[in-house]
C-alpha cells in the first residue's frame, strides 16, 4: 500500500499585500518572511513502502514585487533524517585479498537527506556560504571524529560518503523540486526513499534573495514505520531475549513437527 503522501496538504498563511501592512515610509526595510506548515506532523509508512513524494507548500511574505518579477528569490527545502555517526571504510588489496584497511567516522550526520530547490544550489549562493549554513549534499558538515593528519584523505572519504549515500537513495536532490505556483506561493516536492529511516525528521526551508540567505523556517516531521515487519524490528531491539527465545521455539517446533509428520512407521 502506497500512502499518498502528496495529499499531505500544507496550510499556507496567505499574504496580504505587503504595502498594506507596512507603515508609511518604511516599505524598503520590511523583511521578507517564509511560511511553511503541514496538515500533519507524522507520517506512517507501511512495511511494503516503495518510496513516495512529499509535497510541501509554502509562501513568501512581504516579498518585493520587483525582485519576484526578475526571479531574485530562490527557495531551498530539505528533509533531514535523524542524525547519527557514520563510518566510512576503504578496502585495499593486502596479500591479494581485499580488506578494509582505513576507516573514518563522521560526527552526527543525517541518515537521510532530501533536497528540493528552485535551481542548482551552487548557482543560488557561493560554496563557502552554503558550507557555512550546511545546505546541500555537498555542503553538509562532515567532521571526522578524532584527529586525521592527512587532510587529502578526509576529502576522499567525504566524497565516498556522499557518493554512496546518493547511490543508495538516502541522499537525493532535485534542482527543479521547488516551483512557484503563484508569484509568492511555492510547492516543494521532496522524495522519500524506500529505505527512509524512522524517527524525527526535520523539514527546513531557506529563502535566498539575490544569493543571500534571508529567512529560514523549520518544521519537525515524525516518520513512523508500521506493520508486522516494524513490530519484528522493534521486538528484536527492545526485547532481544524474548525475541531470541521465539526464534529458537520456532526452530524447535519446525524440527520436531517435521519428525512427527514424516515419521516412517
Amino acid at each position, binding site marked *: 500500500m502506497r500512502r499518498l503522501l502528496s495529499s499531505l496538504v500544507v496550510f499556507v498563511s496567505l499574504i496580504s499585500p505587503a504595502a498594506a501592512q507596512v507603515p508609511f515610509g518604511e516599505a524598503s526595510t520590511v523583511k521578507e518572511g517564509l511560511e511553511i506548515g503541514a496538515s500533519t506532523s507524522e507520517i506512517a509508512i507501511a512495511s511494503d513502502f516503495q518510496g513516495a513524494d512529499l509535497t510541501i507548500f509554502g509562501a513568501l511574505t512581504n516579498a518585493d514585487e520587483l525582485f519576484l518579477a526578475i526571479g531574485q528569490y530562490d527557495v531551498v527545502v530539505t528533509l533531514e533524517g535523524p542524525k547519527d555517526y*557514520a563510518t*566510512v*571504510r576503504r578496502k585495499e588489496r593486502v596479500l591479494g585479498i*581485499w580488506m578494509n584497511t582505513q576507516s573514518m567516522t563522521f560526527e552526527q550526520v543525517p541518515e537521510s537527506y532530501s533536497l528540493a530547490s528552485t535551481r542548482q544550489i551552487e548557482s543560488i549562493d557561493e560554496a563557502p556560504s552554503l558550507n557555512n549554513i550546511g545546505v546541500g549534499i555537498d555542503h553538509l558538515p562532515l567532521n571526522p571524529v578524532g584527529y586525521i593528519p592527512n587532510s587529502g584523505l578526509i576529502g576522499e572519504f567525504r566524497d*565516498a560518503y556522499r557518493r554512496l549515500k546518493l547511490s543508495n537513495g538516502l541522499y537525493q536532490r532535485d534542482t527543479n523540486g521547488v516551483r512557484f505556483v503563484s508569484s509568492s506561493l511555492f510547492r516543494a516536492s521532496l522524495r522519500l526513499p524506500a529505505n527512509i529511516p524512522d524517527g524525527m525528521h526535520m523539514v527546513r526551508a531557506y529563502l535566498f534573495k539575490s544569493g543571500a540567505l534571508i529567512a529560514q523556517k523549520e518544521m519537525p516531521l515524525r516518520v513512523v514505520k508500521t506493520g508486522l515487519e*516494524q513490530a519484528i524490528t522493534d521486538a*528484536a531491539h527492545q526485547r*532481544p531475549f524474548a525475541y531470541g527465545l521465539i526464534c529458537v521455539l*520456532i526452530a524447535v517446533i519446525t524440527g520436531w513437527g517435521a519428525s512427527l509428520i514424516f515419521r516412517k512407521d
Partner: protein
Amino acid sequence: MTVYLPIAELSVNIFIILGMGAAVGFLSGMFGVGGGFLITPLLIFYNIPPVVAVATGANQVVASSISGAITHFRRGTLDIKLGTVLLVGGLAGATVGVWVFSWLRRLGQLDLFISLLYVVLLSTIGALMLQESVRAMRRAKNSESAPLKRPGQHNWVHRLPLKMRFKKSKIYLSAIPVVALGFAIGVLTSIMGVGGGFIMVPAMIYLLRIPTNVVVGTSLFQIIFVTAYTTMVQAATNYSVDIVLATILMVAGVIGAQYGVRVGQKLRGEQLRALLALLVLAVGIRLAVGLVLTPDDIYSVAVGGLSY
C-alpha cells in the same frame, strides 16, 4: 513475490529463499549434515549481510538438527552423558565466539574474517573428503577390503587425566579433549553460523575413537543446544537473527531434508561423499574468488554509533 526481511533490511524473492532452504535441506538429508556451512555462504551470495546470515544460519541449524537427534534418540544411538560434556565446552566456546564476532564487527573486519574462515575450512575439508572418497572408490573398483581400523588403539588423547566413563559409548575417556572439541565447535558455531557436525563427526571418530554408531546422534544433540544458545546470544548482543528469513529457511529445509534422506539411501556412500566434497569445494572456491576480485566499490558506509 517479494518479502521484506526486517533484520536484514532488504526485500528478497520468497521463492529463491524457499528454494535455497529446500535445496540445502535436501542435501543435508542426503548427506546427513546440518547444512549450516552451505546455507550461510548461499545467503551471503544472495547479498544478505554476513552478520545476519551467520546468526540466522545458526537458528536454522537448530531446526534441522532436532529431527535427526530425535531419530537417533529413539534408536538409542545418542550418548547423553558424552553429549553433555561436549555441550559444556560448546556453550563456553559459543560465548567466546559471539564476543569475538562483536569485536570483529566493531573493527570492520567481520565480513572478511567470516569469508576467510569459510574458505580455509571448506577447501580443507572438501579436499580431504574428496581424497578419501576417491581412494574408497578406487578400492571398491579393485575389490580390495578397506584397511582395518583398530578402535581399541590408544593415542595421546587417551593418556590425559580426568577420565570419565561413558556407558552408552562404551568408552573410558578423559573429559579434557571432549570439552576442548566442544569449545572449538562452539566458537565456529557463533562465528560461522554452522552446527559444526562436519568437523565434529570426523574428530570424534578419528581423534577420540568414539564408536561410530553413537557419533552422529551425540553430535546432533550437542549441536541443538549450542546453536539454540548461539541464536539467543546473537539476538541479544548483535540483534542479527532474522526471524522471517529463518522461518522460511527452516520450513523449506525440513521438508527438503525428508526427500534428501530417501535419495541418499539409494546412492552409494563413497559416491555420495565425493559429490558432497565437490560441492563443499565449489562453495569454498566461490568465496575465495569473492575475496580476490576487485570489489565494485572499495568504500562502504556503516551507520550507527561508534560502537558499530
